């Protein structure tokens, strides 16, 4: 479960880290123009709002990106049957696939360059400055690669978005441990009798020993990954077990606070209590939570990754928008950008190449968030309290009609 990374390949991304406003505008223009030319779906979406390409270019010239029609993120879900309408499979690429918490994964076709950008960005977001040792509470690369292989679609390879996160993490840390891996011996035995693979979880004592060793050597350590895989360990450790102080860093990704992530089901996480428990178990003072404990808000349908550090004032993570994308919080009905309060998240994230392989330059995500600060043009600077938009799906208890998501349970 341990992998040393001797050859770091941290090539700088094409156009991410410090993207100037004019460059951003150029990338949006070329991405939207390309998207217009390649995707009849997007053209019709714009037409339904009475917008021609010239209108889109005028919107971009004005910097009024919130007016760009956006594709609803759930349009990428397999069950919607729009994969080929929203992806341009003519060039090289692979499908990025979501973790399929709903039983209905999203498929987004992505070029090799964009894939590299996303992975590189993960090495930044999952990374912690000056830290070379990481524990990922996540399935191992081989598990995620096997799952990715199974997710291939329409003759194209697929990669789980989670795999990109883990690969980014491996690229950052000199030494990375993962807590869930294949039990090779038991899997071999199982295979012989036609049973599925066996999974081995790292014992809490082994996790404790890695942390204690780092603590003794005065090494900073970062741990993170999936909240639902991390919590059982957190429950097992006692308060005051470790004393990491400013040498302890925590980064979560992929949500899961509702108690569901992929096929994992657990109790809902009470975020403030969870963070307080992390602080007391690992000996990270409350004053350090706003610099050492963070969450990454992201979703498969966009390349944007938004970092948020814990805010004791907000009792939640405070996510800060960076220049490589624009984020708006919009009215759920009208999609007009809000200046305060809660609304749906809309992201404009152009491709670094300006040639999108999926119609996802402008995406509306069915997640609600609360604005903390906003620019004069409606572009959000920071936001918090992210939750699933309740009205996005019919409640499961209404009737006895079958829904595609049930297939996961059949």
């Amino acid at each position, binding site marked *: 479960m341990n992998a040393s990374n001797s050859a770091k390949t941290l090539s700088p991304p094409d156009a991410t880290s410090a993207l100037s406003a004019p460059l951003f505008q150029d990338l949006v223009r070329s991405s939207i123009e390309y998207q217009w030319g390649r*995707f*009849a*779906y*997007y*053209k*019709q*979406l714009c037409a*339904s709002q009475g917008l021609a390409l010239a209108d889109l270019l005028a919107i971009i010239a004005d910097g009024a990106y919130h007016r760009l029609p956006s*594709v*609803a993120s*759930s*349009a990428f*879900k397999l*069950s*919607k*049957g*729009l994969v080929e*309408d929203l992806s341009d499979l003519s060039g090289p690429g692979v499908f990025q696939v979501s973790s399929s918490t709903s039983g*209905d994964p999203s498929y987004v076709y992505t070029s090799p360059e964009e894939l590299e950008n996303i992975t590189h960005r993960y090495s930044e977001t999952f990374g912690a400055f000056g830290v070379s040792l990481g524990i990922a509470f996540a399935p191992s690369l081989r598990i995620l690669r096997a799952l990715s292989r199974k997710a291939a679609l329409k003759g194209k390879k697929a990669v789980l978005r989670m795999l990109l996160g883990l690969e980014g993490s491996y690229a950052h840390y000199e030494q990375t441990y993962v807590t869930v891996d294949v039990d090779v011996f038991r899997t071999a035995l199982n295979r012989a009798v036609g049973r599925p693979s066996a999974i081995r979880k790292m014992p809490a004592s082994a996790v404790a020993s890695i942390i204690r060793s780092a603590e003794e050597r005065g090494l900073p350590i970062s741990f993170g990954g999936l909240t639902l895989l991390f919590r059982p360990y957190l429950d097992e450790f006692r308060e005051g077990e470790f004393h990491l102080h400013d040498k302890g860093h925590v980064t979560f990704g992929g949500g899961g606070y509702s108690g569901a992530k992929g096929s994992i089901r657990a109790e809902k996480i009470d975020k403030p209590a969870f963070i307080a428990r992390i602080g007391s178990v690992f000996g990270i003072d409350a004053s350090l939570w706003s610099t050492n404990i963070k969450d990454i808000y992201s979703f498969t349908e966009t390349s944007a990754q938004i970092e948020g550090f814990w805010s004791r004032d907000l009792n939640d993570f405070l996510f800060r928008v960076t220049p490589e994308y624009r984020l708006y919080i919009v009215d*759920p*009905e009208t999609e007009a950008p809000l200046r305060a309060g809660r609304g749906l998240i809309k992201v404009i994230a152009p491709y670094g190449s300006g040639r999108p392989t999926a*119609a996802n330059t402008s995406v*509306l995500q*069915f997640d609600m968030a609360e604005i903390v600060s906003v620019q004069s043009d409606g572009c959000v600077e920071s936001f918090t309290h992210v939750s699933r*938009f309740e*009205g*996005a*799906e*019919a*409640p*499961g*208890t*209404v*009737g*006895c*009609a*079958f*829904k*595609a*998501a*049930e*297939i996961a*349970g*059949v």
Partner: protein
Amino acid sequence: MSDPTDPVNPGTPAGPPTQIVFEDPYVQATKTETAGGLELRFPLFDAASLPDIIQGVCARSREVFARLSPPEIQDAMSRLDGFFTDPTRPDIRAVIDLIHRIDGFSRYDIERFGLGIFPPLVRYDRALIGRFAKQAFGTRRPVETAFGCLQRFGANSPFVRRREPGLLSHFTSGNVAGYSAILTRIGLPVESGGPAQIIKLPSTSAVFPMIYLSKMNEFAPLVRETMACGYWKGGDRAVEDIVLANSDAVNILGSEATVQDVKKRAKRLRPRTVVLPHGHKVGVAYISRSFAASPELRDRVLEGLVRDISAFDGAACYSTKNIYVQGDHVAFAESLIESLDRFAETFSPVNPAIKAVGRNLRRVFLGSANVLASPNGSALVRVSSRPEFWVPDEAYRYVQVMPGESAEAVAAVLRTARPFLQTVVAAVPDGEILPVLQLFGKAGASNIHHPGSAPLFNVYEEPHDGDFDFIKIRYPYRVRFAATNFKRNADWMR
């Protein structure tokens, strides 16, 4: 129900009701929920008192069923059903308003498709109850019933033995008014005897079963005493294991995962228990050329089909989802979306609680040339150029229209989706009604209905998911049944 502000009982003090109390003679613990601005108090099963409840209800049902003859019980139940047949009565209006307020379904749907199941039951010739099923067991040919035809599929086994269950438990799901309550009929005596029944409420917002039982308390008080009804959280092992360990028959309604989970536990805890599995389903329609091509006939089909699609916002097992059209399926789809939109505007508005689902689906498909959406998102029609069995991603007024070369070709597609089949709406010439019963019945469908009647199946002569549950709990046979609810098109095109 025992509250002075009870909206179901006429003559109660004026003013908005604030609390409604639903009671059960056996279940004393309660749970209170707020829904639609009302405080609802429901009976709550708890593991500690459950053994006594089971013992009590079983003992009482033995006494009651020894005392009452099946015709007496049938008389009382007919009076009870009769209460729900006149939607102009103020007390029935109050029931409809209450369900609408709590569940959000349109009053039209509750009245026509929820309470709409009762008038045919009340009018039904009691001498015929069970007769057609018995005949169908004896022959492979279709049996003519009061309203249609019934056919058996599969071979009878000589090894099936009759039994008389002592306790029947219902694990219900869904808030669809009407059927959610009459499941209690499964346990009522057929010739003699009858089991006690434990009924799990699907949720604390599903008020219709409790309304039905409270009325049963008035019209058939002794029958009411053979049932204990209340809520427990689905999957609560402490409660469910006691119920399952004591049940001779278990009726399970829910997702496939729920059905399999409860079934597995039921078989483990009481190996000889009879399980009645009712998983979620996907409805189908087949429109033959003559009905698709003639403007007059097509209009009649559309008039019915919009009801089959829209009832309870497409969330019921009978809700039509896949529509196979012999002929110009694109033109049919275009007419259908207009009709659905008009129907939602005029008769049956979308439940406000799920309007956002339609809005979001419309957003998703705005860029798609193959999905037609009504302007306000009240309905969506997908158009596919090839026949397939489409599994909906949302339970909504949301269907797929595609070509159906022939009934045989459609049946071949349906066979691939056997576990999801139940209701097939068929618009076919008179001469094809019986062949369609055989084709679709063999494919796995159980109810072949004329357009406009998908939600209205007659429990006295039609199977539920291929079974007559009231027979199966006593005689656990292995065959399946399918039935039509019309004999000729004149039955519904009058």
